[in-house]
């Protein structure tokens, strides 16, 4: 790798200061799993690296006042193994578990995964269904954006030249909500998703209908996306086989996949349809719900 200056920061203020100074001649690093590979392949050659992993508040995962606060430099492993995340936000733990491989998860960070902003960013679909928001700190102070607003395009986010992501915040949702994250890849591990699906919903068991249905996809558009049309179609409806098929079809139609070396666009569309159905069925099963063949009205 080409030589660079390394700044190991002790505070966010220090990091923002340095970033404001060096701007596009600097790159942020927390885990470095994506960054170092990009540098080795000479996609980027930053002259300065601003290292955030030592900043204490960026490494905390705090559950307080029914809100989960995740420091942006928290490792994927920390998310995967966190008891609160496993219990209350299980879909996020599922997604964390699917990222990379065993060693990569120890090093990679949630902030890095989001800020690298791959169209298939592993944690994005789950976070989109959970309705997270992000704290961003820059020279002019702090601001918050919804995770839905964070991604602008492939590998592009709303972060300005002088800004760093500091926190991911998720409010406690519907207590009975369950979710499933499905990742399609050629291998069982160490893969970027061809497509990924996150589905999250609660069931009104009395009425036997979907409540608050959320669906997000990765790898099928310039950014990770929520499929609001499918969510609308599902809300307050009985989870029948027909409805599940319909949701899969809407999701497939809304997806805008491109062909790349991993898969064709058409294959991705087909997989969205099939795997959305699978994710919903899996979640229903775990909710103890038997799927009817036809809607009863």
């Amino acid at each position, binding site marked *: *790798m*080409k*030589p*660079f*200056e*390394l700044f*190991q920061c002790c505070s966010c203020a220090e990091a923002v200061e340095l970033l404001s100074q060096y701007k596009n001649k600097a790159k942020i690093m927390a*885990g*470095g*799993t994506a960054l*170092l*590979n990009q540098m*080795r392949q000479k996609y980027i050659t930053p002259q300065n*690296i601003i*290292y955030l*992993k*030592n900043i204490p508040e960026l490494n905390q995962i705090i559950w307080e006042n029914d809100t989960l606060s995740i420091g942006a430099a928290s490792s994927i*492993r920390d998310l995967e193994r966190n008891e609160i995340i496993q219990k209350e936000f299980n879909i996020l733990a599922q997604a964390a578990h699917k990222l*990379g*491989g*065993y*060693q*990569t998860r*120890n*090093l990679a960070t949630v902030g890095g995964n989001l800020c690298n902003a791959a169209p298939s960013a592993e944690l994005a679909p789950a976070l989109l269904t959970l309705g997270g928001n992000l704290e961003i700190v820059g020279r002019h102070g702090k601001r918050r954006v919804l995770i839905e607003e964070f991604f602008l395009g492939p590998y592009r986010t709303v972060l300005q030249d002088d800004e760093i992501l500091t926190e991911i915040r998720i409010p406690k949702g519907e207590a009975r909500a369950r979710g499933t994250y499905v990742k399609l890849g050629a291998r*069982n*591990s*160490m893969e970027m998703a061809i497509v990924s699906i996150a589905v999250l919903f609660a069931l009104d068991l009395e009425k036997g209908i979907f409540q608050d249905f959320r669906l997000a996809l990765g790898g099928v558009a310039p950014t990770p996306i929520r499929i609001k049309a499918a969510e609308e179609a599902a809300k307050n409806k009985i989870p029948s086989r027909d409805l599940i098929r319909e949701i899969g079809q809407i999701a497939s139609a809304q997806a805008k996949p491109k062909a790349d070396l991993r898969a064709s666009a058409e294959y991705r569309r087909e997989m969205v349809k099939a795997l959305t159905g699978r994710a919903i069925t899996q979640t229903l099963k775990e909710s103890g719900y038997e799927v009817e063949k036809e809607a009863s009205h």
Partner: protein
Amino acid sequence: MIQARLRINSETYDIPIEPQETLLDVLREKLGLTGTKKGCETGECGACTVLIDGKAFNSCLVLAATVQGREILTIEGIGRAEKLHPLQAAFIERGAIQCGFCTPGMIITAKSLVDEGQERSREEILESMSGNLCRCTGYIKIIEAIMSVIEKTK
């Protein structure tokens, strides 16, 4: 140039390093600890795995300057020919070594698993070893060796 202080296998090393030097390169090129192997340099093969404060990392993706003061364990630090670590003994016993290139990484990753001291199913072991590739053995003996040690230590 950084005057770095690194803790490796319970020894302290004071060496000058550059910011862009990875832990892998420092171990192999500057300290002659060549047990840790360079396979892919992209964090995909696991041949470069070391333990840092007990957790397995791909040393090809770690900047040496960032792990000063952490306890780093390499394959050289876990056993000697006269006193093998149980994992090393199990690998030999079970025939889990062919060319040997993946072996240090396999053993180091497995050690972090074993040290967690928990019961692990075969599936869980497979998942935890997912970051270590082997081109020779087909993995069966490797997993058997690791399972036998986890069985014994639980």
